[in-house]
């Protein structure tokens, strides 16, 4: 039973990881760029959600606010950072992305202050209990929001023409363009969707830990990389699986091994092993 409860803990953290990393893998899919600044979009989502919540006192308005600012930030980065650098070697976009990430973190620190804010939406979901097994209210919230986001994403990708265009562009950008798709618009759409997911993830993490701070996005910026490599660069199901695997493995190792190896280390160990054994990742092509 203890083991099962730890798996639930791990899946909760893992689904947050998956939500954070989806935008990274989608952007990599269409641009072949590591979008480090995605972490800053995630943080902005948390602040945007908090701000909207302060103004309105409504959870749904906060969700809308978080999504809106995140999408705005993602589109702005695509337009003014990645697009102008598209013709340059990929390292230029990577370095620019790191620069944007660090710069934005400092901006958040200057504007909002270095201290964390609490994000208490007073959303009291009931615990689900079955004998000794329990899914607590906050864990249920994470499960519901992540589940809904993933289902929406899956429906979009598989049931709409735009979703098809996105997948096609991700497979081969030039070919998709040759076939008459507006690649530029598809790239922007990818940023919008990935950033919306990051905004939702930022707000969810803020509520789950009741804490919004300028540096909360760093976990996305570095661990997200390990997760998308593990899952297979550019693979959306792979990223979800990678996030869940990292969450569960971290949690189980903490509970089994009495040694304070920073939890982040495990994800990177997994990443190195994947590079050595299966470079295309768990579900990569």
């Amino acid at each position, binding site marked *: 039973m203890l083991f099962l*409860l730890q798996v639930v803990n791990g899946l*909760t953290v893992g689904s947050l990881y998956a939500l954070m990393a989806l935008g990274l893998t989608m952007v990599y899919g269409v641009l072949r760029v590591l979008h480090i600044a995605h972490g800053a979009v995630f943080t902005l989502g948390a602040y945007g959600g908090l701000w909207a919540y302060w103004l309105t006192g409504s959870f749904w308005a906060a969700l809308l606010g978080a999504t809106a600012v995140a999408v705005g930030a993602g589109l702005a980065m695509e337009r003014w950072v990645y697009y102008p650098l598209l013709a340059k070697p990929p390292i230029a976009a990577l370095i620019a992305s790191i620069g944007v990430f660090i710069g934005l973190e400092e901006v958040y620190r200057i504007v909002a202050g*270095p201290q*964390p804010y609490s994000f208490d939406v007073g959303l009291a979901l009931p615990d689900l209990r079955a004998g000794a097994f329990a899914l607590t209210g906050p864990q249920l919230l994470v499960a519901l929001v992540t589940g809904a986001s993933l289902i929406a994403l899956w429906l979009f990708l598989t049931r709409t023409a735009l979703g098809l265009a996105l997948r096609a562009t991700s497979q081969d950008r030039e070919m998709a363009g040759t076939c008459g798709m507006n690649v530029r618009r598809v790239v922007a759409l990818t940023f919008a969707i990935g950033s919306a997911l990051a905004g939702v993830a930022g707000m969810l993490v803020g509520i789950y830990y009741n*804490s919004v701070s300028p540096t909360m996005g760093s976990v996305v910026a570095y661990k997200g990389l390990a997760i998308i490599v593990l899952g297979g660069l550019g693979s959306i199901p792979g990223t979800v699986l990678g996030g869940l695997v990292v969450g569960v493995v971290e949690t189980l190792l903490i509970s089994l091994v009495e040694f304070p190896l920073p*939890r982040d280390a495990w994800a990177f160990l997994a990443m190195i092993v994947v590079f050595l054994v299966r470079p295309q990742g768990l579900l990569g092509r």
Partner: protein
Amino acid sequence: MTRWMTLTLVLVVGLAGALTPPSVAAQETVRIGFFAPLTGFAAADGASAKHSAEIALEEINAAGGLRGKRVELVIYDDRHDSKEAVALATKLVERDNVVGVVSGSYSMPSRVTSPIYAKAGLPMVVAYAVHPDVTKAGPCVFRNGFLGQVEGAAGAEAAVKLSKAKRIAVLTIDNDFGRVASKAFIERAKKLGAEILSEQVYPLGEKEFGPYLTKLKDQPIDLIYHTSYYNEGSQIARKAREFGIRAAMEGTEGIDSPKFLELAGPAAEGVTFTTNFNRDDLSPAVQGFLRKFKAKVGVEADMVGASTYDAMKILARGITEGGTDAKAICAALTNLRDFQGITGKISRFVQGEIMKPVQIQVVRDGKFRSFGVIDNPEVITPPAQ
């Protein structure tokens, strides 16, 4: 020709005058150096320290200054950066003509600069930095905060004697302070007859305590002792409540901050912790500081602020007794007895380490209240180094 010579002479004299004002100014004022992290991740604590130092300064000057001279603070921002701290320590020593230094900063900047002040012969009073090495730099470095050993042992006294805990779980943050405090806690708690059922170590900055607390869920534990700062401490309290864990919780001065109350929310209720600041002390000095801090800053005062205020007052006492001569200030502070600060009555300094009672505070109705005092000399006497 003579006209040019006169002009040159005037310029040279003027320049010389412009370049040497500190020595002239030093005649009329007493200058005290101060550094704290005013920007960067620790800026909240830095601001608390700075405002509190300024409150102490205003009080000192309102009471006529020190030895008839006005007191000035030379304030620097170390950004919690060792390089920055070293550079500004050199400035304080070489250029600013200060008679002593107060650190309103964390262990790292305090630790790298205390040897510089010690070498220059400047007295240094450290407000709340906990690293043991800070005071080892020389005989003239004094610390107003507790060592980890003292706080851990006092925490055990509080857990076993005040909270009546018999079966205890320990969660240790993986840094110097956390390890030292938890070790002292475990030793003392065992000595007092309590049983330690679980010892877990977690990394600094940990957010997800599910894995750690799930293990404690169905154990017969009376109390969870955690060494933590307000970020981790509030997550521990929230997660324990989420899991329905009913054991009492005890922390350290790391959670002595209004941010702990904000981030932990209702889960903070009933949490106790060791600290040096008792807000329920009705003495005019404590209540006056609380009032002035609230009026100046707009939030409630915390341990960092109160400790920095006291550090200023300790150095001021040294100057009152010893004048502006560094050796005389050191001697005065080394021989200090029964000094009443707002963070308690200091019996004396032992090799620069403070000896005063440890306060136990509790969160009640969203406020920090007094839970008890540990003044057993066996526990609060700083260990010889």
